[in-house]
């Protein structure tokens, strides 16, 4: 799979499609970057946004929102907020008024989900599609009886760099056919990653065992992510959309403990001694 340039160095392919779909970086289409000048790189970002689902009558709902904001000051500050209109029957003027009312409360709406086409005037926030439900977000210091429903949805936007990585630990081997996705941060596996399995992480991947399957790190557009393993026998490794297949890997590194990182769009593999 690796294409050799005249000087014999391996050039990595760019997985453009996978970069655009941050939550499903399946290797569906390969982009031939060799024949073109440097392509414009489009990267996906995934953020956790709060989704507000207003209920009728809106005045009452706004009062409840005020109560919530009063109890946990600054809760809505600097958070991306999406308005979910799926179950709300209101007109364009009412929507404008609602957005203005929220703006007065320093709640800035970055997008509208579940709205009819007729509602999407150019002066309103843009429509968002394909939001995936995440767990409910706890509002700090909330009186349970009157808390409005605040459900979180993850939305995809194209903007600033991600921050605040999480991490998960997997205490068993990743078996053939299993697929481990963790977009929010680093994955540490205490065990091996079997041939025919894949680990996909937004951050770095650490394998305390043999890496025999696929490992894709930094899939949310994180070029500083790395892959570490005790024994390299991978089918494919990728960082931030750049990948190498088993054939491209230096044979002398096979079976060695290595770290893998990205340096100026080239995947580097080095033995850890």
């Amino acid at each position, binding site marked *: 799979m690796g294409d050799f340039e005249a000087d014999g160095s391996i050039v990595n392919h760019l997985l453009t499609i996978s970069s655009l779909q941050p939550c499903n970086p399946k290797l569906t289409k390969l982009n031939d970057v060799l024949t073109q000048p440097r392509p414009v790189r489009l990267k996906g970002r995934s953020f956790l946004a709060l989704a507000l689902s207003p209920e009728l009558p809106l005045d009452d709902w706004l009062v409840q929102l005020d109560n919530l904001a009063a109890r946990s000051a600054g809760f809505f500050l600097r958070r991306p907020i999406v308005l979910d209109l799926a179950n709300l029957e209101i007109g364009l003027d009412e929507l404008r008024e609602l957005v203005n009312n929220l703006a007065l409360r320093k709640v800035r709406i970055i997008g509208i989900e579940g709205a009819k086409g007729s509602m999407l005037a150019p002066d309103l926030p843009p429509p968002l599609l394909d939001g995936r439900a995440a767990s409910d977000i706890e509002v700090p210091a909330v009186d349970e009886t009157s808390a409005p429903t605040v459900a979180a949805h993850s939305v995809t936007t194209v903007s600033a760099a991600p921050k605040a990585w999480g991490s998960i630990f997997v205490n*068993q*081997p990743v*078996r*053939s*056919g*299993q697929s481990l996705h963790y977009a929010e941060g680093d994955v540490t596996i205490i*065990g*091996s990653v*079997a*041939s*025919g*399995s894949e680990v996909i992480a937004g951050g770095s991947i650490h394998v305390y065992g*043999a890496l*025999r399957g696929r490992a894709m790190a930094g899939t949310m557009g994180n070029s500083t992510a790395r892959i570490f393993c005790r024994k390299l026998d991978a089918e494919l490794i990728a960082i931030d959309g750049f990948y190498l297949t088993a054939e491209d890997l230096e044979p002398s590194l096979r079976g060695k403990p290595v770290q893998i990182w990205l340096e100026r769009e080239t995947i580097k593999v080095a033995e850890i001694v």
Partner: protein
Amino acid sequence: MGKVIVVTSGKGGVGKTTSTAALGAALAQNGAKVVVVDFDVGLRNLDLVMGAERRVVYDLVNVIQGEAKLTQALIRDKRVETLFLLPASQTRDKDNLTPEGVEKVITALKSAFDWVICDSPAGIERGATLAMRHADMAIVVTNPEVSSVRDSDRIIGLLDSKTLRAENGETIEKHLLLTRYDSARAERGDMLKVDDVLEILSIPLLGIIPESTDVLRASNVGSPVTLADGRSAPAIAYFEAARRLKGEALPIVIPGDKRGLFGKIFGRRAA
């Protein structure tokens, strides 16, 4: 309450049915009440290996669909009187196995037998997942070659996610039974070595069954290898595996290797 064991592998032709019959017979020869259940609906073979093919009247699907009672479908072995067979249907297809029906049958068998050994069909579809569903313990049958090892790895992943025990947050005991092991070929590098397989699958080893013509010969005369010739090498290996199933800590000797490798192997048991 009996123990439910599933004999599974993912890949076909590695020796699930042979191992089910041999282990079932080995356990029953010591007086335990054992039933071997064929889950391979449509491609049944366990009745042939057990030598009971002429005595099948009702089968697993009949019982599940309420057309026969469990006692009518069970076939008692003519050689070992505590050994029973619940055959699969050859004419129906796997869709006739319902999760509720299988649960009912397994629950009934568990209360009447010490060991319920389920012979899983190859593959990872309905038949295989239903066979493993209610198991307390799994025997993963693997040949020392890469495709079998990878399929076994896949099956272990399913055992850890699709069984009732896994869904309830419990663990299912998994044991590796390495079959058709040929030490000469492993030494030449034509086959994976025991250590290689153990390292990849990282589950404890139940036994190593040497490649032998005795196995085929026994199958052809319709007898579990442990009943056909109790002193043949594969029969001895199965007898020892059966004792380990019951919890005995027996050393494992790699066939063709004169040294006892007890310490070595047990030292490497990863899971």
